[in-house]
């Protein structure tokens, strides 16, 4: 029987983190907050501005892993160096890219996306956030989800942006047009959709807000009919925590910061 990893969460994310680790009671346990106790195995860090510094501090204080919830667009290079030097894992808990539906191990979802991309005529993706949210954060989460779904984009450009959202346009590798639109509204829950239209059908991925375990939906339409993949009632948060547990168990390195660095570089250029 494996030992539960101790978890410490900053006050600001204490509630949500407690709820998630309570659903993984064999894997994790709250860190005993006594002056004599050692550093927690895993530290949960909120992703608002300064998260890379706070995560590095947690690693330097002895945590073996850090889980960053909703990381804002921030250069992760210095953190990556600290993590590597200390052999620590950093897992980024992104609201849509972290969905189990987009997991590399979800072979069925990968297959329908790959098949659709081979015959794509249009990619249309929409991400929704609450008004007042930083549009750059939405754009980062949106791009991360599209990338995580297995889509490559060329020639990406900003078509328009305002406090109410943005539109990005580019091309898929086969030359088909692609558009990513961010929209701020409180009328519906935050969610992201990725629709790949093909010459005979489409594939749609709907990624819910991770504040509840609403399942993502992956649906494929071909000439022979439509298929909805089995739903997974697990939030992106819970999957992130399962991921950090697995990384620490296997000793494999996390590639999250590497991907985030590429994303940050793209965001910087798009917004310069």
């Amino acid at each position, binding site marked *: 029987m494996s030992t539960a990893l101790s978890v410490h969460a900053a006050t600001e994310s204490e509630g949500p983190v407690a709820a998630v680790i309570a659903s993984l009671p064999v894997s994790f346990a709250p860190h005993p907050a006594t002056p004599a106790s050692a550093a927690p195995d895993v530290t949960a860090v909120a992703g608002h501005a300064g998260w890379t510094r706070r995560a590095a501090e947690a690693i330097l204080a002895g945590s073996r892993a850090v889980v960053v919830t909703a990381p804002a667009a921030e250069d992760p290079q210095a953190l990556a160096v600290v993590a590597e030097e200390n052999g620590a894992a950093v897992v980024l808990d992104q609201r849509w890219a972290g969905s189990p539906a987009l997991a590399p191990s979800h072979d069925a979802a990968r297959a329908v996306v790959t098949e659709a991309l081979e015959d794509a005529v*249009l990619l249309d993706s929409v991400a929704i956030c609450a008004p007042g949210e930083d549009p750059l954060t939405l754009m980062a989460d949106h791009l991360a989800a599209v990338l995580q779904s297995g889509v490559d*984009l060329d020639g*990406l*450009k900003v078509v*328009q942006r*305002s406090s109410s959202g943005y539109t990005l346009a*580019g091309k898929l590798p086969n030359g088909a047009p692609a558009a990513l639109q961010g929209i*701020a509204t409180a*009328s519906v829950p935050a969610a992201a959709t990725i629709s790949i239209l093909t010459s005979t*059908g489409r594939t749609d991925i709907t990624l819910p807000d991770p504040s509840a375990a609403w399942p993502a939906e992956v649906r494929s339409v071909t000439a022979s009919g439509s298929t909805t993949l089995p739903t997974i009632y697990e939030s992106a948060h819970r999957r992130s925590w399962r991921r950090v547990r697995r990384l620490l168990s296997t000793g494999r390195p996390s590639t999250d910061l590497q991907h985030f660095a590429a994303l940050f570089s793209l965001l910087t250029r798009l917004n310069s």
Partner: protein
Amino acid sequence: MSSQPQTALPPLGVGILGAGPVTQAIHLPSLARLRGTLEVRHVMDVDPQVAESVAARVGARFSTTVEDLLADPAVDIVAVCSPHQFHAAQVIAACRAGKKAVLCEKPFAMNGEEAAAISAVSAETGVPIVVGAMHTFDPAWLAAEAAWGDLPGQVHTVRSSIVLPPNPRFEDFATEIVGRVPLPSRDSTGPEAIGAMLTGGVMGLAIHDLPLVRRFAPDFASVEVLHADTVRPFGYLISLRAGSVTIELRAAMNSTWEPAWTFEAIGNDASLCLDFTPSYVHAGSATARIRRAGTTTVLGPFGHNGYEGEWREIAAIARGTGSAPSADTLLHDLEFALAIAGGEAPAPAREESLA
């Protein structure tokens, strides 16, 4: 809603200019459900065999000239369902013939001069003109309009997304088409072909929803094309801005069996989403959803679509119990469409790759 309105008045006579698939698959089935209110009495088409065959279905006379149809005293209402380039001249001729009303398929003109001439003739003759923007007559749209409250004032984003198979798939569910002309092969390469596809997409497909878009874009006259691209085999991806409103238009006519026709108007606190049924199939109205945080109001679906709705409306107008849309509304709808179709997207900027 019942699809058979009650009336004691004799039916109004309808004459149809152009007897192609839209007339056969959309208008005749719609009018068949309004028997007692409207009656097709004359069908004109330049192809005499098509004219005769289509007219015979409804026991109407047929002819091959506009003049013959307009001279028929049994025709009270003229429906202009001919190719786009003939619309303006035929609408003007119908007004001058002193008919009770004219229904013209969209677009009712192809440039501002034609539109101004139509407006002048309508004002001079007093003949009301209705443009067949069917979604503006859809019962779900009308129900949403009655229920959306402060939505228009807060909308900052409008999306229209149309995914349809080629028309024949749905035409054949509605009727047995005669005289179908094979679809021309489309060249989608080269600047001219791309420009033609975008113009055709706007004037032939996007135009169905542009009156709805304009409802949420008070600064429609300032519309700018920010980005435009084509979708193969036919379609478009167009980004617009009109004042403070972002407008995104998407369309793909591929070989899918699953249509998806969605219109969305989104504000900070409320949004409207309409899922329309495809044209041709007579599958009832759209379903409208008005959403506010934590609540969704669903309106529809109702038993008839916007095509039947526009015929109901024009019958009421011809009888004097309904009000014709203002000339300004029709003109502004057309100007909006022409501005988008003729707009040039700026050169790409800040291109980056994400792979």
